[in-house]
């Protein structure tokens, strides 16, 4: 596990420090790992718990003047989604307005050591896109409605109601300003793809270091075989579905005839 932690660190630390070169040369750095970096979706899959843990590496003694905080985010693959709004027209409820969001993660969770608003400046939030509403990225085409805000709010609200978007204030535990740990529950309704884990280290509301690691979620076994077949050989898959239906229909009919004869 330790060796893998170092490898993951090596693989991730380089691009991260290149990408966010604007962050001040960190006197404190994140060393972290995940309890697992792949999740297999089997037929009986009902969610998965991932522990994201690590330590803060520093050369100097712990600075005492500014509070230290950690934010962990896990973001699922982005997909397009359309938000529609109903209004009453001629006595019936009709979809009137719609906003197409080209890219919104299907899963997004933010875990923090303390309430997000208290530990993160808003400009830093915008820069790193940390809080839940900022996870929704692009709108497709020209907006057909005057005000997009209620639509994006509704998207977040509906996804939160389904446990797909979540803000867990205080879900990250930080010990001795050095060791931290976050338990993130991935729900059962997962889709396949690469899930991005990000860890932000904050001092006084500013991000001083970031860390990224991917989690691969994929279907395995029967799930994978059926999924592939449906996409790659749809005709065969369709015939198979029908054959199954016919066989089941015939089987039940034959079985009941046997029962009635007795």
């Amino acid at each position: 596990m330790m060796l893998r932690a170092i490898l993951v660190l090596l693989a991730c630390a380089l691009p991260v420090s290149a990408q966010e070169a604007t962050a001040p040369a960190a006197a404190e750095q994140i060393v972290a790992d995940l309890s697992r970096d792949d999740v297999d979706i089997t037929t009986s899959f009902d969610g998965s718990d991932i522990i994201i843990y690590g330590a803060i590496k520093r050369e100097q003694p712990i600075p005492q003047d500014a509070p230290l905080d950690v934010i962990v985010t896990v973001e699922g693959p982005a997909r397009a989604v359309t938000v529609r709004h109903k209004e009453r027209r001629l006595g019936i409820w009709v979809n009137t307005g719609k906003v197409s969001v080209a890219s919104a993660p299907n899963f997004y969770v933010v875990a923090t050591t303390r309430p997000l608003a208290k530990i993160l400046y808003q400009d830093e939030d915008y820069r790193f896109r940390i809080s839940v509403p900022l996870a929704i990225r692009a709108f497709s085409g020209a907006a057909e409605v005057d005000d997009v805000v209620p639509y994006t709010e509704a998207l977040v609200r509906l996804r939160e109601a389904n446990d797909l978007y979540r803000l867990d204030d205080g879900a990250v535990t930080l010990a001795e300003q050095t060791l931290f740990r976050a338990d993130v529950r991935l729900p059962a309704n997962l889709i396949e793809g690469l899930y991005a884990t990000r860890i932000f280290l904050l001092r006084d509301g500013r991000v001083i270091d970031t860390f990224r690691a991917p989690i691969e979620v994929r279907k395995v076994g029967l799930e994978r075989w059926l999924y592939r077949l449906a996409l790659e050989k749809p005709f065969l898959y369709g015939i198979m579905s029908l054959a199954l239906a016919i066989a089941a229909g015939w089987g039940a009919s034959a079985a009941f005839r046997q029962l009635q004869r007795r």
Partner: protein
Amino acid sequence: MQIYLPIAEVVVNAFTLVGLGGIVGLMSGLFGVGGGFLITPLLFFIGIPPAIAVATGANQVVASSFSGVLAHVKRKTVDFRMGWVLLAGGLVGSSCGVILFNMLSRLGQVDLVVQLCYVLFLGLIGAMMLQESLRALHRAKRSGPVKPMRRNQHGWVHRWPLKVKFRASGLYISAIPVLMVGCAVGVLGAIMGVGGGFIMVPAMIYLLGMPTKVVIGTSLFQITFLSAYTTLMHAIFSNTVDIMLAVLLIVGGVIGAQIGTSFGARLRAEQLRILLALLVLSVCGRLALDLFLKPDDLFSLTPGVIG
């Protein structure tokens, strides 16, 4: 027991699905309707994405109606010739319906059209059937023995050319109105995402004048093929058939269909029609409420980019 569906990408309870399949199978065996108008809204309700619900519902209908057909073939209550002619019309209608559906979705508001179609047709057919069968039951009670239903022996449909003898139905009528009924039901079925049995059954009774006993088996026969065609089209062009979901629904469905068929044999035709009418009316009422009552959340999410 929770189960992950590979195409729908959601987790559902396996027993709930078997139960749903069973209820719909029971309807199918009892009334000769495929049950699509029940299964599709029920699947929406438990959180299956609409496109998957429509396509997989069609697959389930294949199994339950095939099971039902076999039972009816045994009792010799299927008019095969009538079934084939209806099917020919149905395939044409269904293809036209898919094209019409795509046109409507480009215009937007396809959901509203579908919902209005449901409320209108279910309401109309339900009310007609209820009124007719109540009257028949009342008559039967007053005059003791059941009189055969007076059929529209010399209506307009009987004067057209291309006459065909449909022996099992005891009819000698033109094939043209039969094709037209098949086609019209096919169009509506494709738009509404159902097999169309609930429109087909009353159309056969009231427009073509077929005897109720033969109607159910023949309707099931035609529905089996039409929904097999729909399933295949969905599997090929939209990859929306979830075989795992289908298997669970089918297990419940085939058992329900057998029970339904043997119940149906013991009930009188008028009683069967009253029950079907009440069922159709209650689904209609439920859908109408959705149109008129203020929804819980005015906003809704649909995967993908629309229009």
